[in-house]
């Protein structure tokens, strides 16, 4: 059951650019039993049906170690904060699906009682769905803010102006940084994802935040794994490069991106990076244990 501190439901704040996340929002992180915070970043574009079906079992299997019997009692688990992008797909009856990376906090909260939080850039005008009143955060009525969380923050430029898709990244990194300074164990788990996910991966590493990269999740996460493990940078920024080539534009910006990423990797402690397999929840469980994230 999701930990609900505000008895009305998911605590929600709307923050303008340049404003800090309200202290009341940030303090929800301290309600977790374990002083740890994990950001789940990325997407699931291009997933096969098998990969989509594997995603939640991957997280459920990786965040708790259970007895290998019918009872399946939890031996140890993650009891900290999990946060992500906060969006969810809703059907016509207002039921939320669990088909996106951004639903991972709510799924883990329901299963293991973690504190689920989110930061969401406001990329569309907000609306209240007319039948059930859910908060619509996307251009279509089915894109909702996941209310099954403890606390959510929407980041906008101001009341009139929307935010870019990466608008919440510096905000959440500052939040994670402050928690890290206060002794919290931190990590970013990344799957799939495009340019923003790549920025999140390298942004985390620059800040000394461990990255757990999920192999087999495609796109920039797999590209990062290839670059980190094999020194092969051909897939880094490749989607962006392909778009520029198709538009007959100069691809130097992609070369610069790769150069920047290489510079980051050259300067980090390589033990900050773990690679796990989407098809193998036990690999995530092992890394979580190794990083002291299971209690």
């Amino acid at each position: 059951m999701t930990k609900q501190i505000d008895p009305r439901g998911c605590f929600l704040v709307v923050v303008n650019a340049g404003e800090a996340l309200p202290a009341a929002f940030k303090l929800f992180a301290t309600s977790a039993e374990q002083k740890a915070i994990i950001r789940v970043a990325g997407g699931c574009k291009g997933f096969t049906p098998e990969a989509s079906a594997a995603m939640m079992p991957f997280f459920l299997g990786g965040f708790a170690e259970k007895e290998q019997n019918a009872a399946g009692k939890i031996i140890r688990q993650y009891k900290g904060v999990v946060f992500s992008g906060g969006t969810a797909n809703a059907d016509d009856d207002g039921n939320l699906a669990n088909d996106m990376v951004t639903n991972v906090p709510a799924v883990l909260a329901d299963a293991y009682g973690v504190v689920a939080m989110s930061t969401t850039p406001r990329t569309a005008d907000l609306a209240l769905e007319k039948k059930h009143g859910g908060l619509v955060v996307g251009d279509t009525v089915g894109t909702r803010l996941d209310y099954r969380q403890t606390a959510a923050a929407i980041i906008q430029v101001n009341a009139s102006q929307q935010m870019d898709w990466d608008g919440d990244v510096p905000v959440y990194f500052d939040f994670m940084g402050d928690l890290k300074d206060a002794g919290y164990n931190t990590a970013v788990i990344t799957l799939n994802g495009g340019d923003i996910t790549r920025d999140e991966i390298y942004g985390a590493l620059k800040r000394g935040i461990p990255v757990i990269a999920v192999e087999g999740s495609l796109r920039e996460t797999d590209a990062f794994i290839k670059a980190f493990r094999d020194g092969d940078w051909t897939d880094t920024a490749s989607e962006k490069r392909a778009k520029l080539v198709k538009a007959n534009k100069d691809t130097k910006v992609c070369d610069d991106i790769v150069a920047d990423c290489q510079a980051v990797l050259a300067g980090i402690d390589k033990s900050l990076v773990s690679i796990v397999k989407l098809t193998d929840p036990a690999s995530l469980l092992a890394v979580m244990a190794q990083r002291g994230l299971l209690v």
Partner: protein
Amino acid sequence: MSSNTSTQSWMDASPTLFVQSEGQSCEKFLANFFRNVRHFVLRGTGGCGNMKPEFYYGLENLKLALGGDPSDEDSPKFEGFCLFGGTRMIGKEDPSQIFLGITEVFPALAERCPDARILGVVAKAGHLRTTPHGTIVSMGEKDPYVTIIHPVQHSVLLLQPTVDKLANWDSEYQRCIDICDAPSKNHWPGLLIAYNGGSVTAREISAWAQLGRKDPFYRVLLVKNSGGTAGEFACDQDFLDEHPHVHVCDNTVDSMRTKLLELGAIVAPGWQETAQSVTANLPEPDSATEHPHNRSAYSALTE
């Protein structure tokens, strides 16, 4: 101790200092509340330069009540976050002379209460001066003392309207109320303890009393026979009857200790293993329309 260790330890022991101008937030100071410390906020306030010497004895009582009996390791003591005025008064003629006031109570807890986080909130009431004896934040012409930032605390928030303008003394308690908004919304317990004090203390007691009508975080403990406005409020039965969340204790260690235990400010060692949690004693917020968290604490008072 190696020279490297001693170098590092004096730096690590020094309080962090953050200067906040009007309109700014201070996330680094607020991040103190992420520390692995019991979720309880104690705000300590009261008399300083105008406190008469006949009331000094009670400051020692408060130190003992909050800091535990040094001869009894099982004695209950304060664990949590403590917000106080963050200053010390030292003599103009002899800077080694410390003038007693409420702000000498809470730094003593830094050593006695290893599971407490002592946080100072200081109004820049005078233009700052750095001296070998500390950073001066206020210097009254007629006073025999100057006010410096207290050297013993974990972190300090210094308040100023702007770099060129001076703050008034009320800004300290107003900012403390704003700081308490977040723990309040997270259902932490809180307590204002007031000893002696003048008009600023009176306004703070009134503010907490009013906030406490709707939000169970804002409880008050007044020390009777401490003089000043805290002593006066403690004897005002009409005020006490109107504000049941305002409590009174006598100016004795035993009475203070009993009340602090009852209100959850001090806990016995191993409290984590006991079944009852302090928060279990707080009433649940009512419906959404009456929810105490519908607006920020201090702005609610100023509307």
